[in-house]
Structures are given as structure tokens and as C-alpha cells.
């Protein structure tokens, strides 16, 4: 619909559109553009006729860098793809290499990955909703959301030792098990998160200003969204219930009960509601996983993949050689290619990996969900008002590290 208005405006010489248009440059250093996107806008008054987004201001050579790192050294780079939810990227990459190696992570590992992954999703959605509200002028929602995120990060820090860039996953397992008192700590954190979700809901959902800015802005239709390669909450807001956790379950998602919220209009408000509902589902998934957390080993039992325990490394020659070979030569991944996909906070996070049978990836392509949002954002913006760019840009949750890699 937006595209139709834009076309009509551009093809209306009697209104003097062509004479009156103004070209406006927005970004890259603009607070609403997250510092890494530039938009060249053609405006007729306040209506956007044409929008040409330019990305690449955070391109840091992820793929080239990974081609020169061993399979395990890639983990820190994946942390910094979607830096709102590093754990999900970690697990997505680990799953891809495991698929290539033909191994399956243990039950316990899958459950813990699900728990931590959903925590990362919660943190991501808190950031996204909070920042979105901030940029529409609601500072208090942002302060609450960041506080909630800090509660999650406190837990993440207890498990992984880092707040943000965790590098916690390993090929075939995890760095460590959950701490003994994790369930109690979660019990203590959960009511605080509910509290903030409720506050966000109260502050925003029925807020007249918020509704006016969000409803019927940045609209995209279901067919167009699918063709544009949209996934995640943005696609679900159009009514397409595409969620990889349901459609091709991985980790422990086939053993938990959750719903996939979908919207109807495909506008900013629906995307906001979908994210809000997903957070509630995430908390429910974490509860179920903690309840059903199985015992047993954490990591796969294969010396070609997992590092030996430190006692063996220091006290036995076999252990030391094993350690040495895994660190210096890397895990030997058989030649071949694989495309593995997980549901990250923004949508389908795919890893297309080509190995030539050595310790380093020959090619490591990330399919970032945000890249395709940016490729189609002009269709959501054109025909709308200049001020609608801000909520649209926020609800697609553009993350520079992921778009530009």
C-alpha cells in the first residue's frame, strides 16, 4: 500500500512533486540510525517518496577473519554478530559445526542451551522494546528495560563469567555446566522480569501517543515479507507463523510447550506486541526446561572434538598432546558443506559452512536476519511520514554487527 502511495506521488507532476522534493541525508551518525546506517531520503513535504538505505558502516570482515581462524576460534566472532543476544549466535554456530561433524549434543547440553538461549532472547527483546520506546520519547520504559536486561546479564555472568560477549558454547557442548544454585537464582530473577514486562505493557501498550506512532506505520504484507526474506518477529507480525523452533525443532524445543504469537496487520504495533508476547513464552520455556533438566554428561565424549580436562593436560603426555593438537591444528572437520539454521531473536540465523577437511573453515557465511530487513525497509518507509521511520527502524531491530558483519 505504501508503495502505491509513493508511486502516485512520484507520478503526479500537477502537484509539482518533482519541483518540491527535498533530498535529506539521515545518518550514519544519527541517534535513531544506531550509528551504522545512512538513509538518503527524498521527501515531498514530510512524506517519504524514496528511501535508499546504505549499510556497511560496521563491516568488519567477519567472513575473512573466520576463514583465518580455527573452528573454535570463530566463537568470539559470532558473539559480536548480534550483540544483543550473543548466546544465540554461539549456539547457532555450534549447531552448524555439529551438523557437519555428524554429532549430536547431549540431552543436558540441549536443555541448557535452550535455557540460556531463551535468556538471550529475553535480553534482546528487552533492549529492542526499551530502545524503541526511548526513541519515541518514553525514557522511563527504556530505564526499566535496561534494568531488566541487567538482571538477566547478572545471571548470564554467573553462568558464563561475562556479561555480554560470552563465547560460552563449544563444538559438541558447553564450556561449563550451570552453577548449582542456578534454579534458585532464576526463581529470584523471574518475578523481577515479570514486573518489568508488566511495566512495559502498562507504559506503552495503551499509551495514546505510542499507539498513534506505531499503529498502521511501517506496514508490510505477508507475501511481500516472505519474498523479501523476512523472518522472525517481523514476519510473524504479518500473520505468517514461521518459527524455526516449531517448524524444525532443535535443542529441546520439541520437548517444551510454547506458542508462536502472530500479528495480523504487519505494522509496527504488531511487531511490538509479538515481541512482548514472545518474552512471556520465553520465560515459560525456561521454567519448563529447568523443571525437566536431565542429568548425565554435558559434552560429547570424543577426544577429537572436546578438549581434555585440565588435570589430564597437566599430568599426562596424552592429554597434553590432545590439547595441543586441538588448539593448534583445530578440530578436523570433514570436507563438505552444510546450511544450518536456528531461530535467533530477529529471525532465521543461518550458517552456511564449507570445509575442505582442515582445521579452519574454508567458507563461513552467516545468513543474518537483519540484512534482509534492511533490504526491504524502503518498502515499509516509502509513502509514509518522515517520523514513521523511527518506529519502523526500531521494530525491525536493526543490529549493525549482524547486518554488516
Amino acid at each position, binding site marked *: 500500500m505504501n508503495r502505491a502511495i509513493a508511486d502516485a506521488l512520484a507520478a503526479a507532476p500537477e502537484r509539482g512533486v518533482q519541483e518540491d522534493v527535498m533530498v535529506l541525508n539521515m545518518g550514519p551518525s544519527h541517534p535513531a540510525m544506531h550509528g551504522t546506517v545512512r538513509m538518503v531520503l527524498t521527501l515531498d513535504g514530510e512524506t517519504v517518496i524514496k528511501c535508499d538505505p546504505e549499510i556497511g558502516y560496521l563491516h568488519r570482515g567477519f567472513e575473512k577473519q573466520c576463514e583465518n581462524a580455527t573452528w573454535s576460534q570463530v566463537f568470539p566472532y559470532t558473539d559480536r554478530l548480534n550483540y544483543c543476544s550473543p548466546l544465540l549466535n554461539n549456539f547457532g554456530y555450534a549447531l552448524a559445526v555439529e551438523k557437519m561433524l555428524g554429532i549430536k549434543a547431549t540431552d543436558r547440553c540441549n536443555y541448557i542451551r535452550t535455557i540460556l538461549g531463551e535468556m538471550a532472547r529475553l535480553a534482546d527483546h528487552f533492549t529492542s522494546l526499551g530502545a524503541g520506546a526511548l526513541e519515541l520519547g518514553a525514557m522511563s520504559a527504556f530505564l526499566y528495560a*535496561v534494568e531488566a536486561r541487567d538482571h538477566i*546479564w547478572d545471571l548470564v555472568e554467573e553462568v558464563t563469567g561475562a556479561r555480554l560477549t560470552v563465547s560460552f558454547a563449544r563444538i559438541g557442548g558447553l564450556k561449563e555446566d550451570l552453577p548449582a544454585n542456578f534454579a534458585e537464582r532464576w526463581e529470584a530473577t523471574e518475578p523481577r522480569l515479570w514486573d518489568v514486562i508488566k511495566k512495559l505493557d502498562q507504559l506503552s501498550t495503551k499509551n495514546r501517543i505510542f499507539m498513534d506512532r506505531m499503529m498502521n506505520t511501517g506496514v508490510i504484507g505477508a507475501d511481500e515479507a516472505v519474498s523479501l526474506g523476512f523472518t522472525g518477529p517481523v514476519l510473524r507480525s504479518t500473520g505468517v507463523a514461521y518459527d524455526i523452533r516449531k517448524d524444525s525443532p532443535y535443542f529441546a524445543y520439541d520437548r517444551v510447550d510454547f506458542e508462536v504469537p502472530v500479528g495480523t496487520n504487519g505494522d509496527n504495533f504488531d511487531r511490538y506486541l509479538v515481541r512482548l508476547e514472545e518474552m512471556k513464552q520465553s520465560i515459560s520455556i525456561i521454567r519448563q526446561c529447568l523443571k525437566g533438566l536431565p542429568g548425565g554428561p554435558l559434552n560429547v565424549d570424543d577426544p577429537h572434538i572436546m578438549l581434555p580436562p585440565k588435570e589430564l593436560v597437566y599430568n599426562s603426555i596424552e592429554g597434553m598432546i590432545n590439547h595441543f593438537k586441538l588448539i593448534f591444528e583445530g578440530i578436523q572437520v570433514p570436507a563438505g558443506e552444510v546450511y544450518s539454521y536456528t531461530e535467533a531473536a530477529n529471525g532465521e540465523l543461518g550458517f552456511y559452512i564449507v570445509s575442505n577437511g582442515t582445521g579452519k573453515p574454508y567458507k563461513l557465511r552467516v545468513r543474518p536476519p537483519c540484512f534482509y530487513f534492511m533490504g526491504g525497509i524502503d518498502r515499509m518507509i516509502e509513502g509514509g511520514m518522515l517520523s514513521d521511520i523511527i518506529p519502523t527502524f526500531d521494530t525491525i531491530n536493526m543490529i549493525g554487527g549482524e547486518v554488516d558483519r
Partner: protein
Amino acid sequence: MGVDIGVPGVVASRLETAVNWARKFSLFQYPFVTACCGMEYMAVACARYDVSRFGAEIPRFSPRQADLLWVVGTVNHKLAPHLARIHAQISDPKWVISFGVCASTGGFYDNYATVQGIDKIIPVDVYIPGCPPRPEQVLDALMMLQDKIQREKWDGPRAASDVAPAIAAVPA
């Protein structure tokens, strides 16, 4: 700076102290946020760590209204001219904090795309290591900058010893 105030030395040095004191507690920040460190910058700016306790209140998103430039995150060659321009647009006196290893040295992105430290483009006052640094470390860096501002002399813009960059301590 480099103001010729035309008053006797002793008055000038007292005035210097007073003005530097005022400057260090009214830092107007321009967050040049690009990457992952921005997440920690958000944490620093929000309620729990609350950077405004140190006189650095609400961020200004116009270089004309700011005097402290935070470069938060990786800067690549595509973005470099924009950073240089923003730095030039900030009026003197101005200070620069390089937030995180990517901004300080390029970090572990040693490749065709990334600038190996923003000091290749603009002068830096305080470097904060860490990927990303913890909020406590950021607050430490801010206090270091305040110390530095307090020590600034007015004969000449900034004495070379003051311009020499500081590096925020890594917590044990």
C-alpha cells in the same frame, strides 16, 4: 583553549583551577556508538551505573552541543571520514574517550575493513580496554578524564604531558 586572559599569573592559576573544576563536572557527551560496546554504554548511561552521578548527564546527539566524544565500538574505513568530521565539528575544549579495544586498537578485527584504532584518525584522551569493558571500568575512565581536565594548563592548549593518553585500569 590557549586563552590570553590578560591577568597576573596567580589570578590566572586560581581561575584555571576553578574553570577546570567546572568543566570536569559538566561534560556533555556525544556518544558515537557503532557496535557491541554500545550495549555496555547503554548500561552505563542507565539507572544502575548512572553516569550522570559524575556530571556527565544526558547525551547530546549534536556535536555542536557536546564536548566529550565517546567513540563506542569498531570504526571501519567506510565510517572513518564521518568520525573525523564529527570530531572537527565539536568546539574546543573537547575530549575523546575511546571505548573498548576495537576503538582503541582495532581489537581482534585485524583486516581490510577495520581502522586499527581511532587514534589513527583523531587524538584520544583516555583509552578503555575490554571487549566490551565493564561499566565500572568505564566509570573509572571517566574519573581519569576528570583528573586530566583538572590538571590542564592554559599556557598553550594542553601541555604535552597532559595530552599523553591514559589507559583505564583493567580490574583484577
